[in-house]
């Protein structure tokens, strides 16, 4: 399943014959409140496994996910998804908003919004609860879940519409190690089941555990997309090198 070909993707991606199989971000630009949040971003991501997106705060990572999810329209450029992913993108925000209902209610409502036929809902609901290891918590009001439980609920809720591409924005940013482990295990289960995952993360350890490649963003541009484990040991761009060393990027 996983494309673990250990080669540096030529950057910027050349329109190679295989390009239509990749997730392409082409010449994206977005200005918000006078700031170029995304500034001519072009890159290609591998269509399978887990890709990580890294970069300092303000690099444009979250906005990039929103553009990929179709929630924000770019001023210029486009995202070209492989055919099976089109219209099938799920996203989980950094601080997921859970509905004021039970865990089960959140999932049922998401299935409804995803237009899952009524007859299939109960089965899908059970699947999602099991996938997130959430069964004992099913009747708990969602807003009383712990951080890790809430994050797992938000992730499986995003699967209600059965997406082929799942975008995760720092899903473990505020979690303790045990909860982080639970979320990572869930993400791996999802990827293994065939859903492409793109995860924004600041945590090199997490990237090492999960990702097949890392895209490094700075000032709204892609500096490099490098397969793992090469990225952590020998990043291609000066920006990524500085970032991994802990230097503040300007």
């Amino acid at each position, binding site marked *: 399943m996983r494309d673990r070909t250990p080669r540096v993707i030529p950057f910027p991606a050349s329109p190679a014959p295989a390009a239509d199989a990749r997730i392409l971000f082409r010449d994206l630009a977005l200005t918000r409140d006078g700031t170029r949040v995304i500034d001519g971003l072009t890159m290609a991501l591998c269509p399978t496994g887990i890709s990580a997106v890294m970069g300092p705060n303000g690099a444009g990572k979250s906005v990039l996910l*929103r553009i990929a*999810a179709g*929630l924000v329209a770019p001023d210029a450029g486009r995202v070209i998804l492989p055919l099976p992913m089109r219209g099938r993108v799920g996203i989980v925000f950094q601080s997921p908003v859970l509905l004021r209902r039970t865990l089960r209610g959140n999932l049922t409502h998401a299935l409804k919004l995803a237009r899952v036929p009524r007859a299939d809902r109960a089965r899908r609901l059970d699947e999602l609860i099991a996938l997130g290891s959430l069964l004992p918590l099913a009747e708990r009001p969602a807003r009383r879940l712990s951080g890790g439980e809430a994050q797992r609920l938000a992730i499986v809720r995003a699967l209600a519409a059965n997406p082929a591409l799942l975008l995760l924005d720092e899903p473990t940013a505020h979690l303790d190690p045990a909860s982080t482990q639970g979320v990572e295990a869930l993400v791996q289960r999802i990827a293994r089941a065939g859903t492409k995952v793109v995860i924004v993360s600041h945590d090199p350890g997490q990237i090492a555990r999960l990702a097949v490649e890392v895209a490094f963003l700075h000032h709204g541009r892609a500096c490099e997309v490098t397969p793992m484990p090469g990225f952590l040991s020998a990043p291609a761009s000066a920006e990524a090198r500085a970032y991994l060393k802990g230097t503040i990027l300007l």
Partner: protein
Amino acid sequence: MPTFLDSIRTALALIASGDPDLVEIVLLSLRVSLTAVVAAAAIGVPLGAALAVFRFPGRGALVVLVNALMGLPPVVVGLVVYLSLSASGPLGVLGLLYTPAAMIIAQTILVAPIIAALTRAALAEMLTEYDETLRALGANRIDTLGTLLWDARFALVTALLAGLGRALAEVGAVMLVGGNIDHVTRVMTTAIALETSRGALPLALGLGFVLLMLTLVLNAAVLGLRARLEGPAHA
């Protein structure tokens, strides 16, 4: 001058006596105001929800208008309803003047803007929180509206209670369009006004306490129900 203690004693004695006239007045107050709140909710909740969720030309002006209408003086509403329902007015043929129906209409007009404005405020605030998540989950505007109405249900209950409070406490409009007719359109507030004009201040204040207790019981009942629905701890 009557002391408050006297009036509370009067109120308790009134309640204990189970005076049929008092019971009749309390029941009419409840019937009129509860019906008005239901009617006002039928208007105000969809209106407020639409104002919160949909974007259309004139929406901003409508929001300002609805908020301003919250401050409608009951007497003005009463006057407009009176002139409309008067035998010489456009709706005179309905024969509703000086009936509980007229009082319900007046209170509905008073309460609907309150419910609409509070509904809009509650849903608009929740929408800023929910909008992106719901869109990511595939919701269209109608889905969003439905989701917000359910998730804001406790805020809506509070809006209805605010409306009920206004309806039960209001005197100017029901006096004008109901006429305070004994056994027909006399409610708590018009009875209080009448006793005040008779100088029977302890009785008037006692009736006021009965009204207060009535609103307390209603609020406690609704909030108790809410707590039960919401579960043991806080969300």
